[in-house]
């Protein structure tokens, strides 16, 4: 056991747990007043998130030990499960905030779209690693997975959950980009993707969705409506200053900041813990993302490499879109902040992903250990590069 443990990446083990635990605390701070206003117990959201965290922690541990290569064998099953969930949600899903995104299974409510993120990463990683040898052949290697991606995306868009769809699209782009396909193919893919999105946008875009854009870029032109959330977010961030007003001392969560414990939780963090608190959170998230990419770079196995990359991208992209929205860089699309925002499905998917990432790191390290044991003079990274080169057929 002790020898096994030493192959784990402790940074990646500790950081997600720190973030999730911190998220639970912030959710309590941000949600207690709103819970009371909604005539619930002040601890309502705290306890629910703690339950999810407990479940997530168990899955995290499990996945950390569960050999990631096995997912490739489960691929068909996973895809089928996702499609069934996505179709189900369109029919028996519960509508919330204008989107039919929720499946109630007993006492649990799940967002299938969250699981699609991870499922699709696995799928793309699996298929592109299989096709590594003829990755430059567009019709044989590049195109088929895109059809699957398009199908899943379409189902998410139909809910409609544009925010999640956008993230899924970006994650897919990231994985495909990293898979090493030709730039020529990549560009034409991006062009086609943007074309499809543009077409969908003109169909889907109505005044309400458009107003989110004006809300993001001229919030003070409509302070009571479209600009309201962003202004309240600005105020929360602006009043925080360097050190913040102290944990629990925020004012903006008292009904001014809608979604204080979900999408706008970072505004509460900024108000209560200041720039320093925010930078710690961003630092931890960046650690996971960059460490994940680093692992992906080290990983000898192309499936593991792309999987790690996809997971890292998922965290990074969600972080960027969420923080971009609360700081007015991007339109507000309802994307939760990884680990911190309230939300069971999101946390479960992230904890599972972190487990997988840890497992990849474990195997990578173990592999590297073996390699460096064979050739002690070289360090792991150079070895990888050399091996990569010599491995070419």
């Amino acid at each position, binding site marked *: 056991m002790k020898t096994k443990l030493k192959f784990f990446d402790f940074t990646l083990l500790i950081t997600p747990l720190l973030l999730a635990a911190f998220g639970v605390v912030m959710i309590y701070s941000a949600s207690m007043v709103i819970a009371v*206003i909604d005539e619930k117990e002040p601890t309502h959201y705290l306890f629910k998130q703690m339950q999810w965290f407990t479940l997530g922690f168990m899955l995290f541990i499990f996945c950390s030990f569960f050999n990631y*290569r096995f997912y490739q064998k489960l691929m068909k099953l996973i895809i089928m499960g996702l499609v069934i969930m996505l179709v189900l949600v369109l029919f028996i899903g519960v509508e919330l905030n204008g989107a039919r995104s929720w499946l109630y299974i007993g006492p649990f409510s799940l967002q299938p779209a969250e699981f699609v993120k991870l499922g699709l990463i696995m799928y793309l990683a699996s298929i592109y*690693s*299989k096709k*590594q040898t003829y*990755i430059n052949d567009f019709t044989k290697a590049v195109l088929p997975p895109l059809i699957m991606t398009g199908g899943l995306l379409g189902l998410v868009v139909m809910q409609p959950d544009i925010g999640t769809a956008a993230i899924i699209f970006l994650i897919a782009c*990231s994985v495909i*980009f*990293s*898979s*090493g396909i030709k730039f020529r193919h990549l560009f034409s893919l991006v062009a086609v993707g943007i074309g499809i999105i543009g077409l969908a946008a003109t169909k889907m875009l109505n005044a309400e969705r458009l107003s989110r854009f004006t809300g993001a870029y001229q919030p003070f032109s409509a302070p009571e409506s479209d600009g309201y959330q962003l*202004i*309240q977010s*600005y*105020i929360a*961030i*602006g*009043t*925080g*200053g*360097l050190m913040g007003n102290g944990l629990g*001392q925020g*004012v*903006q969560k*008292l*009904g*001014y900041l809608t979604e204080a414990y979900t999408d706008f939780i970072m505004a509460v963090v*900024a108000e209560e813990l*200041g*720039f320093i608190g*925010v*930078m710690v959170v*961003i630092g931890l998230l*960046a650690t996971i*993302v*960059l460490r994940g*990419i*680093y692992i*992906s*770079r080290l*990983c*000898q*196995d*192309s499936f593991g*490499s792309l999987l790690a*990359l996809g997971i*890292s991208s998922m965290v*990074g992209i969600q*972080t*960027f879109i969420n*923080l*971009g929205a609360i*700081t*007015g*860089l991007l339109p507000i699309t309802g994307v939760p902040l990884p680990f911190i925002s309230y939300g069971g499905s999101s946390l479960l998917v992230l904890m599972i992903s972190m487990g997988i990432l840890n497992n990849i790191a474990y195997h990578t390290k173990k592999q590297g250990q073996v390699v460096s044991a064979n050739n002690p003079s070289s360090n792991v990274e150079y070895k990888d*590069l050399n091996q*990569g*080169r010599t*491995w*070419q057929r």
Partner: protein
Amino acid sequence: MKRVSNVTMRKRLVTVFFLGIFIFATISVRLGYVQFVIGDELLERAKASWSRDITFEPERGKILDKNGEVLAENVSAPTVMVVPRQIKEPQKVAESLAEILDMPVDEAYKKITQQEINVRLKEGRKISEEKAELIQTLGMDGVYIAEDSKRHYPNGDYLSHVLGFSGIDNQGLMGLELYYDEKLKGEKGSLSYFSDAKGKRMPDMADVYDPPVDGNNLKLTIDSRVQTIIERELDLAESKYNPDGALAIAVDPDTGGVLAMSSRPNFDPEDYQSVDPDVYNRNLPIWKTYEPGSTFKIITLAAALEESIVDLHEDEFTDNGAIEVGGATLHCWKSGGHGHQTFLEVVQNSCNPGFVSLGQELGKEKLFSYIDNFGFGNKTGIDLQGEANGILFNLDQVGPVELATTSFGQGVSVTPIQQVMAVSAAVNGGYLYEPYVADEWVNPITNEVLEKAEPKVKDRVISEDTSAEIREALESVVAKGTGRGAYVEGYRVGGKTGTAQKVGEDGKYMSNNHIVSFIGFAPADDPEIVVYLAIDNPKNTIQFGGVVAAPIVGNIIGDSLRALGVEPREDGLEKDYKWPDQPLVEVPDLIGLSKNDLQKYLINLSIESNGTGDYIVDQMPKAGVKIEQGEEVRIYLGDKNNKDKREEENGAENE
């Protein structure tokens, strides 16, 4: 195990790694920007968004006369307030309110269904007691009558142009209410408490109470006793002469403080919407500019005396009824002229050629520099809105004709207040004051005087000696000359008549349409009051300042000085009882009588004789014509049989 195959893929991963760093850096910079660069501004917005203010309206300062008499105050006024959440039948309530408050139903409906805690209707503000009662009897849920305060002017249209009025928010809109709005209105107070978005108070934030600061009370130089007299006299004049307009000002010549000021047409400040804006926008005593006519001769006289170019008693002048100036003939107001007179008589008779000669002696530079020094052509600086400048000839364009007409008050355009201040300077020893209305600012609670206006001398224009001579000359105008209507027993009134021609729309002087005026002061030994009165186009009368305006000013001065408690004088000039104030008399037929027979006919008429001889050969006016007592009858003497009539040409209109 599929191995990482491709160098491209490794390179791409490095790219993604740096892209990740870039993205996190971007987000951090943006957060820092929001937090630190625009943070303070956001904090201000946050405070505004968190705080709920309950405003406390300050009491607007009262306006009082110099004796503390209330001229403008505040009374409570009912205001409709609606609490939308409590309304059960919005449609019915909207219809009722719309009916009573005279507003469209759909607008009322929109208002009372707003998502607000309480709503005020614009039409429901400061409504009448009757409407308020009507609303209350309907007993609608969620509709309340709240008390608001509104401006009240207890004396109605009294002093209205000076006081002005304030609007629905108690904001000054006109007159003193506007001019001193900042000081009268006070400062709003507020109770700010911090609350969450649902309006609940935030526990850890302290309430902030800013008490309202009431506006200060304004004490005027206006003396309501004098103002009352002036209002009364203008009302009488209005009903008697049905003029196009009228105005009067009374000023304390020793301070420049305005004692009274009034205009006709008039308005009620509480109902200002019901009159033409021109009525309330035009405070005639400071707004109206016109040719002053003979009252302006006082300035020419002052200049001539100060420059020692005339001795009123020693120097003499012969008026032939007209004077030739620069190729033009300027007539005296009196046909045939005043004949041979001392310059004192020139003043008494308001003889135009006599003043033209004074103007010529002075020369245009001197005369115009005096006009300028006396304050004409510039605003006096009175603390009221809407003062006019007046218009003078440009010195470069003044030729002999302009110099001549200016010296008897034609061709210049001045405001009444300029004349009053100039004449005040002429009779008070030469001090040109800046007129003012606001005398003191008083703390409404402690009655402590916070600010007191000091009389402001703008210029010393003539010497005390010259001033004394002017007073003497003008007293004789009232006692013996054209201004005798203004004579008040015991108060030594001095003054000067004016009959100004008006320029019609065609640019020519209008006939039978004059502004008749009189400027008077008393007592002549130490003037306490200067009164100017002008009546625009009086009907059914001879349009002469001496006939219409002088008696009114006499009444005003007499009553005012008694009201002010000024001691009567004993050493004044006796009124020349050749001109008692009596009803019109018929001119008798004098033709053919001898000079000696005249005595018994002419008890109440004055005689001016022309020519030589023992018998009266002709007369003006003709026998049977009714004239004012004291008016002159001109007789022509000659031999008994000489009955040639002498044709009279019409003289200049100017008195």
